[in-house]
């Protein structure tokens, strides 16, 4: 909350909920943002809705959608003697194709792993360690890709030869289209990720109108998530499929042009693998030719094509919204936040972690 901003009163929130709950058709509403997943569980929003309104979590947690193929590659990279891995904290405990393939374990074996708060910290680490190759793990959707772009440009301006990026940034539109086209899912509305929308704007979600899919861009406070659901229900009732933006205090119709320009002049779109979903056309961002000297994959290409995980983890199905976390046989028994088997339980943004933490099952 910003200073001076007032949260809606409970009386108003209850009125909005009353309107939402007057809708009795069976519907599936999907959110595609780890912070929404958490907010919905934390505020108990599921239990405030009638049982026909089914809130499902989609592939909105960047760490969770990163496939084993990439996680194994990062693990191997971290064990190279002259490499320092600079990463956001979320990646440190995520296992690859085997439970022991985590950066945490690599660190115990002597790997040099540095947790960073910002991509710029990684550039500083490269400057301070000229004899090491510093690899920044560029992860996240449109919200964090511009930060990676700025770091690469800064490294270029400084003439750094030892700064690299493993770019595993992903775009939300291609995967949302794929999920909408999956008839077994039947998504009736999207709660659009507020901070991706800050970058791509309302425009970035207008493609949902092609599918007659009601959607609203939502913030992350309790009332903001409920506002988002309100607009989707209102759109469903009124058969009005125009994207709604109740998060207009931050999200502009055209988005953040500086951020969009950085993305488009630093990266190229590539077909990219997603956990549980497979390869999604033009859904990944890799550094373009102008910045290829910073692309760690040019120096150490990924040689493995596929990895198999046979430990019963259902993260893939959960990310598609086909299973709820508590429907996985491992959930809460073998797989807990203390002993996570899959990424959806490891990451604080993962839906398994949110379900477990707030016991919303």
């Amino acid at each position: 909350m910003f200073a001076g901003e007032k949260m809606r009163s409970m009386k108003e929130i209850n009125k909005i909920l009353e309107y939402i709950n007057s809708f009795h058709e069976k519907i599936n509403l999907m959110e595609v943002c780890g912070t929404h997943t958490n907010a919905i569980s934390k505020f108990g929003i599921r239990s405030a809705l009638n049982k026909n309104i089914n809130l499902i979590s989609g592939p909105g947690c960047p760490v969770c959608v990163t496939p084993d193929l990439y996680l194994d590659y990062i693990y191997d990279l971290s064990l190279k003697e002259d490499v320092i891995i600079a990463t956001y904290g979320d990646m440190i405990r995520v296992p690859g194709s085997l439970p022991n393939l985590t950066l945490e374990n690599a660190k115990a074996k002597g790997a040099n792993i540095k947790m960073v708060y910002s991509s710029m910290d990684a550039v500083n680490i490269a400057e301070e360690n000229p004899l090491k190759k510093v690899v920044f793990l560029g992860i996240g959707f449109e919200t964090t890709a511009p930060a990676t772009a700025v770091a690469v440009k800064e490294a270029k301006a400084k003439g750094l030869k030892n700064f690299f990026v493993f770019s595993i940034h992903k775009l939300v539109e291609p995967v949302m289209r794929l999920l909408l086209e999956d008839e077994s899912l039947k998504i009736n509305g999207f709660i659009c990720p507020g901070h991706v929308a800050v970058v791509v704007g309302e425009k970035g979600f207008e493609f949902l109108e092609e599918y007659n899919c009601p959607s609203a861009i939502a913030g992350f406070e309790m009332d903001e998530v409920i506002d988002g659901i309100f607009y989707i229900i209102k759109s469903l009732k009124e058969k009005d499929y125009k994207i709604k933006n109740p998060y207009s205090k931050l999200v502009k119709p055209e988005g953040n042009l500086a951020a969009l320009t950085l993305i488009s002049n630093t990266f190229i779109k590539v077909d990219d693998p997603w956990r549980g979903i497979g390869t999604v056309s033009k859904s990944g961002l890799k550094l373009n030719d102008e910045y290829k000297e910073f692309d760690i994959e040019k120096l150490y290409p990924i040689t493995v094509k596929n990895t198999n995980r046979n430990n019963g983890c259902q993260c893939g199905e959960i990310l598609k919204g086909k299973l709820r976390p508590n429907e996985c046989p491992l959930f809460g028994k073998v797989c807990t936040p203390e002993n996570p088997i899959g990424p959806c339980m490891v990451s604080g943004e993962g839906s398994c972690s949110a379900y477990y933490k707030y016991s919303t099952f």
Partner: protein
Amino acid sequence: MCLGLPLKIVEIENKEAIGELNGVKRKIRVDLIENLKIGDFVMVHAGFAIEKLDESSALETLDIVNELEEAVKNDK
């Protein structure tokens, strides 16, 4: 990493700024923000301000209540 932090800008130096929340100060990058001023509120992700808060819009909490009343009327 997608968790945003709203910070108030207290210092600006080129592409860097100091943002503050409840007395805690943090150095951030402001490459993505145009015409930033001291006192502006920004949403910060992974060390980067991603947008300025539009205060006029944030203070309009009444807006949705009017829409709700309209929606309920149409519903009947």
